[in-house]
């Protein structure tokens, strides 16, 4: 993907290499906050915001700190540090600047701190040796992919609530089966890029 075009990166991160459905990152919030479309949209927005910022900042951390000092092995811990601090910062600022949005995002914000999708994104950006522009594109694409998956899934789950599901499958079992079917459906995009 090193010399892939920006559009290709965008499409591939949204559909082909969807973070949730084909990379299996960020499964926890995917299952946890997908009961209602409304809350899943909130989660998607929060993740989009944090992912984009995290992607950019980790890029600079890698280029300006880790690479020059040749301490690439500290990547994971350094990125976690960045993400955690970032989420905290966003939370503080939001609480002051936009209490309504803060209320709407609620518990999802702190949840993102431990969202492996964000860390996975930061690590993938470096692994693929993206430039800054491509990093941003990839980050936004991945975030949109995550939001798309979680909102679609929430829509299905809302219907499942009222569906006549056999008792042993009620609740999480049917949700997991649904998730796997969605994953298979997204497999259909392979070869698009």
């Amino acid at each position, binding site marked *: 993907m090193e010399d892939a075009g920006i559009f290709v990166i965008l499409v591939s991160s949204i559909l082909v290499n969807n973070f949730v459905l084909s990379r299996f990152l960020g499964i926890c919030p995917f299952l946890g906050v997908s009961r209602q479309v409304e809350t899943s949209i909130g989660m998607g927005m929060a993740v989009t915001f944090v992912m984009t910022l995290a992607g950019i900042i980790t890029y600079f*951390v890698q280029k300006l*700190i*880790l690479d020059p*000092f*040749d*301490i690439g092995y*500290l990547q994971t*811990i*350094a990125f976690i*540090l*960045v993400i955690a*601090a970032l989420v*905290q*910062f966003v939370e*503080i*600022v939001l*609480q*002051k*600047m936009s*209490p309504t949005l803060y209320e709407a995002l609620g518990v999802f914000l702190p949840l993102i701190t431990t969202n492996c999708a964000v860390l996975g994104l930061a690590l993938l950006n470096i692994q693929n040796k993206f430039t800054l522009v491509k990093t941003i594109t990839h980050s936004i694409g991945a975030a949109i992919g995550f939001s798309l998956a979680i909102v679609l899934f929430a829509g299905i789950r809302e219907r499942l609530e009222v569906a006549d599901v056999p008792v042993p499958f009620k609740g999480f079992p049917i949700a997991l089966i649904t998730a796997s079917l969605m994953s298979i459906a997204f497999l259909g995009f392979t070869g698009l890029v």
Partner: protein
Amino acid sequence: MDLNNILLASVSLGAMGLLFGAGLAYASQKFAVEIDPRALAIRDALPGANCGGCGLPGCDSFANAILDGSASINGCPVGGPECIKKIAEIMGVEADESVKKIARVICNGDNKKCKEKFEYFGIQDCKAAAMIAGGSKSCSYGCLGLGTCVKACQFDAIEITDGNLARIIPEKCTACGKCIEVCPKDVIDLVPFEQEVAVDCNNEEFGRPVKEKCSVGCIGCKICVKVCPFDAMVFSDNLAKIDYDKCTNCMLCAEKCPTKAIYANFEKRRKAQIIEEDCVGCTLCKKVCPTDAIEGELRAKHKVIEEKCIGCGACEKKCPKKTINMK
């Protein structure tokens, strides 16, 4: 091993940590949102079970609701008087002594006492059953006993008896009001925990129609209203209701009720006892006793006639020397 490597790693990571830490510290100062310290104090005073008994999503939101005045300080049904006292202290208001209450199913018409209109085979839920001609019970005010309240109760405080009636287990009930909300028949009421007498009927019809449907219904004869020495019986909608503030648990009404629609726990009936050494023979207690259960002449020691005493406690309140105990 290269010492430089370790140094570089720790310094760069440490510097990053410091930088972020300082940034966050600065941000939290700069963007500080004032949180009322009382909110935290109230939350600490609450049980913290997040049960939702107050009608709000959790203890946190209840604490906030108290602060903005949308919830009263005794809104927590679980915490009890102690919790209310603590919150009152934090808010700087007087705690009104709230009596511990429990829910009570005010229907005693089980499947033997109350006739059925038809056999019901539908969804086992009171709400669904109530939609079909008001339920299978001939009395359209009574408990259907399909357990909608049991499902709503978070404290396992309701059971269905063999006679198809919901019954509240007083020790477990927290008076959260969930069952009252879901009951389609409005046949659950809040009564004080100490209350030993209660009208167990919800039927607002009068006389014969009640009698025909249920053998333990309130027919609206008003005998209890007349017999109550303390004016604690209120009569409205063809139904006797007890004013719990005035009721002394003397159980006279339950004794006199012709259909036994009033429940009374006679085992818990109290008896007056006079400490003879301290009695000065003022006859005040004798005068106040509604059943003439105290005998004795002026300036002579008084005695309680046990069989007549109904344990209302009127004499105890009246005695100037505090020589009467209720047991």
